[in-house]
């Protein structure tokens, strides 16, 4: 894949990120909101990988090291994002299940116990 410019990947990433933001704003189901967060994380992952491959020279901070380690940093970030997302999903879904067991309802607009 040599013919596709960097901007194409970034544009797709931006679009997916926007979809995630909009979903978090307008949906009420906490599970769907969670999925929208995953969508945003993945948009960022795509951006990381696109930059890692095309790697504009200005993006390399001075002192990071040779070309190779600078290319790898993008991929490493993606691995860490994936791991953090997995941990987040395990805990988050556990919380949603606990809330559901407590209130038998998962509408996010009605979770206002702390409103006082």
């Amino acid at each position: 894949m040599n013919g596709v410019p960097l901007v194409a990947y970034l544009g797709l990433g931006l679009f997916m990120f926007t979809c995630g933001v909009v979903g978090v704003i307008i949906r009420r189901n906490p599970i769907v909101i969670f999925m929208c967060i995953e969508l945003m994380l993945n948009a960022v992952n795509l951006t990381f990988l696109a930059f890692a491959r095309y790697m504009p020279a200005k993006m390399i901070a001075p002192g990071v090291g040779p070309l190779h380690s600078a290319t790898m940093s993008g991929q490493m970030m993606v691995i860490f994002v994936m791991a953090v997302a997995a941990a987040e999903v395990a805990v988050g879904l556990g919380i949603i299940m606990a809330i559901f067991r407590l209130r038998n309802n998962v509408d996010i607009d009605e979770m206002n116990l702390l409103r006082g």
Partner: protein
Amino acid sequence: MNTSQLNIPDTVFFAVLAGIAALAAIGVVAFPNAVRSALCLVVNFFMLAFLYFTLNCEMLGITQIVVYTGAIMVLFLFVIMLLNLGSPQAFFERRDLKWIGGGLFGLGLLVVVGSQVLPPLLKFTQVRAEATFGSPQSVGLSLFSDYLYPFEIVSVLLLIGIVGSILLAKRRIE
């Protein structure tokens, strides 16, 4: 952008993958049914994995399928269905003014960020990384040398996540 650099089969392939991914992303937000949203997200993650392959990141692409579609999304579906089994009415979602406001906000975000960030990057069309930069060997070498400490910290984080989710899911013993 120099049109002579455009490679027609590659561009068409990218356009198809990106188009499906974008449609699926819209589907995640727009379907009122949570299971449909989850399925759209699965499709989106799949297309992202293929896009990672087109970026020569085969290790991360396959990890994307294993971690996201193979584990995380199955977990999502599992929880949705478990809650659905408990009370099928729990997922009725009203549509109101928030949809219009949210849509307008999203459009604004897209236009502002797109117009400010993307144009200066238009000139980058050349691939700079070597072809094997996404192979399991190079990813593993990097992960276990330069990034060893973050790797260990993330593994501890995952352990904490496991313990936390077990604590949350456990029924309280009276």
